[in-house]
């Protein structure tokens, strides 16, 4: 079993609606090449559960008829997959050069202060977590942040627009 920071081993079940989507993805590749579906399927799993737990990875391996380790090594290689639970809204701020030229570091400091949690931590109400990520390919519109699972994009951030965004998300969560 994979050793992850979070040892939560709560079994997961995949709904039929979810496995129907898996099947649709698998149909895109030649016979016997179903492993190609791994990355898209992990995105669907994360969208459903908020992160990718070890039991969920085992289930994916079972579905794709591959070894669990083939799933673990992929899920841990790609930075988009969360290996532990996140806030309902996981803010990912671009921290690479071009965004820093236009103030990304200030934005990250502001988010840390506003949410009162350090990078990678979740707020007490479970609503927010945040982290710096590498270049999001939006360098002309920086600073930028994204929020999964739809990866909605927020551009040309200011401290004020970040405050507004956080308030809007709180309101959305409470409705």
């Amino acid at each position: 079993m994979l050793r992850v920071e979070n040892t939560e081993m709560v079994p997961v079940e995949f709904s039929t609606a979810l496995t129907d989507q898996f099947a649709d993805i698998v149909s895109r590749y030649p016979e016997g090449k179903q492993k190609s579906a791994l990355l898209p399927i992990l995105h669907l799993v994360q969208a459903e559960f908020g992160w990718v737990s070890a039991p969920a990875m085992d289930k994916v391996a079972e579905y794709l008829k591959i070894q669990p380790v083939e799933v673990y090594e992929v899920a841990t290689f790609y930075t988009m997959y969360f290996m532990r639970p996140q806030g309902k809204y996981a803010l990912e701020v671009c921290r690479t050069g071009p965004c820093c030229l236009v103030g990304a570091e200030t934005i990250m400091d502001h988010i840390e202060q506003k949410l009162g949690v350090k990078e990678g931590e979740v707020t007490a109400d479970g609503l927010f977590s945040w982290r710096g990520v590498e270049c999001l390919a939006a360098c002309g519109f920086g600073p930028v942040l994204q929020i999964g699972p739809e990866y909605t994009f927020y551009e040309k951030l200011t401290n004020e627009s970040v405050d507004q965004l956080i308030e809007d998300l709180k309101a959305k969560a409470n409705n």
Partner: protein
Amino acid sequence: MGRKLLLEHINVPGINTFDVYRSKGGYRSVEKALKQLSPEEVVEEVKKSGLRGRGGAGFPTGMKWGFLAKPEGVARYLVCNADESEPGTFKDRYLMTYIPHLLIEGMIVGSYALGAKTSYIYVRGEMMPQIRILEKAIAEAKAAGFLGKNILGTGYDLELYVQPGGGAYICGEETALLESLEGKRGNPRIKPPFPAIAGLYGCPTVVNNVESIAAVVPIINDGGEEYAKIGIGRSTGTKLISAGGNLAKPGVYEIDLGLPVEEFLYSDEYCGGIANGKRLKAVVAGGSSVPILPANLFLKTAAGEGRLMSYESLADGGFATGTMMGSGGFIAFDEDQCIVRNTWNFARFYHHESCGQCSPCREGTGWMEKVLHRLEMGHGSMSDMDLLVDVSKKIEGNTICPLGDAAAWPVASAIRHFRDEFEWHVSHAGEAVTRNYGLAHYADPLPAPVQAAQ
């Protein structure tokens, strides 16, 4: 005013829909290619156009297509590289967001030329909105008979799928991309064999950047020779430039290759100069991995000639005094920016993104990050600059894929051109954490080129 071959209709309302795109002449190249041209003739047109890969390497696209092996009974694939991740580059995101059908159209023509029956567009996972946009565009094109079985009654079948990545810069390297598309870690493969012989699932495969594939559309519509008339020398056609950093008007611009750098930077048609009336200190012309140049060397070559936005002119002077076109990720630094801090930032990026397969890159990028960090934080020593150059040389050329080079070049070039700023970070360690070195002499006119020996 430059021509617009790719972005001509970008501002037409609804151009992201099939009907509006079609009404503006969209999908003509598919009709022309499938009904009037053989696959070989399509490849020939692309060769004649002189189109060079727009992802960064600048390899001639037609030649790459010509290398594709065609063994009997073996599937062939066209894979679009939409894993746009090179810091400074955001043109492909722009193109896919606003004019997705241009990419779909290019994919159909390209797949026909290569004999692919199934093609994939590998989009970086963070671009989920663009993935949805492309999926919708594909469904529309299919409903209109431009994809699927027996396209336009020509007997040609093609299925096109969008594949999300997982957030790894390395997957922009074509063999890492193929590994990822096969559901594995993005570890680049040792070449040869090249993907043209053994690519996706071991089958002959061509991997092309989004912009390269989109450029096939005007090439087929107008003919390769017409396309080659645009530009200068071996830099033919138009190029999308992602302009970011401290510019008055950042954004994506389509330029004729050969446009003077000064015009691109300062004219109102393009970047409109430096933001807030500041002065230019440095430029990274083609994405974070290409050598950084101080303002004076960027605007004029060492020989004193005005630089042009072309593959050759940007590279004039080699790495001693030149840089590269790369992916067209243009990053401008104003007088208040710290080159040491930025170099550390880029080094951290490459350390983070190294796949870990080759020791020189895995270890070297980490050491460069650490040494740059201590310089930036005021704990460096005068020998650190030579140490960094030494580490960069030991990475460069010693790795399976070009990520090692990409990590080494920005560090080596920053020290080459901004050594006094690095030294100032050591000699004024306390001051360097509270203020920046400033513009210094980096925008001063260069001394007249050295004359031949008297």
